[in-house]
């Protein structure tokens, strides 16, 4: 009798254990799948880029001229444009980020105005990219055309202004979160030393957050490089190396979208895969640096 009950209990236990094991396996499968997707993306891009390497056509893609009708498939102009656009957008967005963060943490530390500004920044994260592009097409582009009286207005300048507004909220929120922590640690000391709010910001809080500053810049860069819609809508899309701010330009991301929408030439396709692979690798580099900084930052504290 007792034996029988014992074995029944043991069976129930075993069943539970098996169930637990299966659940863990299913959860692991989900986590593994999420991780494997990245590997799949990478291998797919490499697989489609392979002909470039095996058939020695890499030189044709890493060239300065894009003119598919005359068999020129160089993507270097787009690459340069992407880099220039990102750097220019950061040159505008970074000072604005510092300015807004020092408003939030120094000049107006409490009150309605601060809450409104924070609300605004949170609101900006929710605005779809396509809307930034849409409004730029109908406001910024005619404005540039009217003020500077050169070209159509669809230019590097328009894209970089729009892009800087687009990446701003991400950067502000990251830096703001970090400054919140730094403020809790240093505010009293700084006030005891008789620093003004701006002095505290300049010589205590920002130096304390210098790692966060780099993370901020990298995240902003990542968003700016990866953005497609703004450059597609307002940059003008001429495949050339820009010589002035008012030249019509095309970024790597826009190049991918444009070529896949129109051309069907196999070499044009391969240039797109090369562009995709390059973007992916660039993001991996950013991510690696970010990880490195975050980790060394943690050990630093």
């Amino acid at each position, binding site marked *: 009798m007792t034996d029988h009950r014992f074995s029944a209990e043991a069976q129930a236990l075993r069943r*539970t254990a098996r*169930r*637990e094991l299966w659940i863990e396996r299913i*959860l692991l499968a*989900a986590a*593994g*799948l*999420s*991780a494997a997707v*990245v590997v799949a*993306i990478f291998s*797919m*891009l490499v*697989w*489609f880029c392979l002909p470039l390497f095996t058939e020695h056509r890499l030189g044709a893609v890493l060239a300065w001229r894009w003119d598919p009708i005359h068999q020129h498939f160089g993507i270097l102009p787009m690459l340069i444009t992407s880099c220039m656009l990102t750097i220019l957008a950061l040159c505008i967005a970074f*000072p*604005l980020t*510092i*300015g*807004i963060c*020092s*408003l939030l943490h120094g*000049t107006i530390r409490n009150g309605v105005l601060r809450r409104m500004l924070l609300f*605004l920044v949170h*609101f*900006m*994260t*929710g*605005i*779809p*990219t*396509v*809307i930034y*592009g*849409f*409004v730029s097409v*109908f*406001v910024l582009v005619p404005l540039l055309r009217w003020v500077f009286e050169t070209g159509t207005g669809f230019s590097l300048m328009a894209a970089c202004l729009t892009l800087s*507004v687009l990446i701003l909220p991400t950067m502000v929120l990251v830096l703001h979160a970090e400054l919140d922590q730094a403020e809790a640690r240093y505010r009293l000391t700084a006030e005891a030393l008789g620093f*003004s709010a*701006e*002095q505290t*910001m*300049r010589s205590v809080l920002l130096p304390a957050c210098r790692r966060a500053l780099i993370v901020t810049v990298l995240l902003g860069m990542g968003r700016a*490089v*990866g*953005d*497609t*819609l703004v450059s*597609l809508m307002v940059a003008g899309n001429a495949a050339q190396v820009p010589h002035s701010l008012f030249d019509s330009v095309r970024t790597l*991301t826009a190049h*991918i*979208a444009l070529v*896949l929408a129109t051309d069907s030439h196999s070499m044009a396709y391969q240039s797109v*895969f090369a562009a*995709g692979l390059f*973007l*992916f690798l660039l*993001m991996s580099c950013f*991510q690696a640096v970010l990880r490195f900084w975050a980790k060394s930052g943690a050990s630093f504290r």
Partner: protein
Amino acid sequence: MKPTVDRFWKTVSWLSGLIVSASVSFLIGFLLWKGVHAVSPRLFFGDTAWQDALFGRRPVFDGIWPAVVGTLSLVVFASLIAVPIGVAAGIYLSEYATARQRRWIGSLVDLLSATPSIVMGLFGFTLILFLRKTIFPNAQTGLMLAAGCIALIVLPYLIATTQAALQGIPEESRLLGASLGLTKWQHIRHTLIPLSAKGILGGVVLAIGRAAEDTAVILLTGVMARAGMPRNLWDKFEALPFHVYYLAAEHRDAAELAQGFGTALVLLMVTTFLFGFSYWIEKQAARRWNSA
């Protein structure tokens, strides 16, 4: 000396605050000014009666209803794919994973979140090329492919929010399971998930918002202007953000332009609502532990 630098710094900060607030207010104001009179039943259904459009009895030609349906089905299918996987992966990473697994899987998921959406779209496109070369010679881009690619975009958000919600649970609540003699999964199922449900829900809403706004992915995976209603899961479709993009470049007359502004306003309202809602849930969830 110092006061001068201070004053300069202060001026620049105020200036940057002003510039940003002004440009965003201008953006909203401009959209409202141009778009608000376009938002009407006519914007959605055109000349078709709304009852007929809603039940699909008659096609809508000059309204944005097909785009609304397209975006809605994209969001639904992408969530159906991404939410179970994302939440399960988040639970695994937070509760089961060893430090080593967490580092590896975590960095790959981070990389997934950093991948530009156009590259995700390119991945979907190559998948179709690959399928055409191998088993399905007439594979086409379409609704399900786009939903799958969007699911990949929102997956990292879901994983991150689930992980954060589970890790935000105070240590005392974690003792509960052990004290009752629950197994690990019973503990997760009956105490941890209910306690972190709000945080997870916030992540889901955020993911829906991201899925609704993304344009670059669907650009490469089967969106089409004037595709009408998708007839099946593999058909071409329309979507709200793409409609805005398309009308910005290719409007033929003032009426279409007005429709563009109306669509942009509708899209902005939808995403603002979703992001606001997710932010609110997040605040609620955070307050719960801080006040306790």
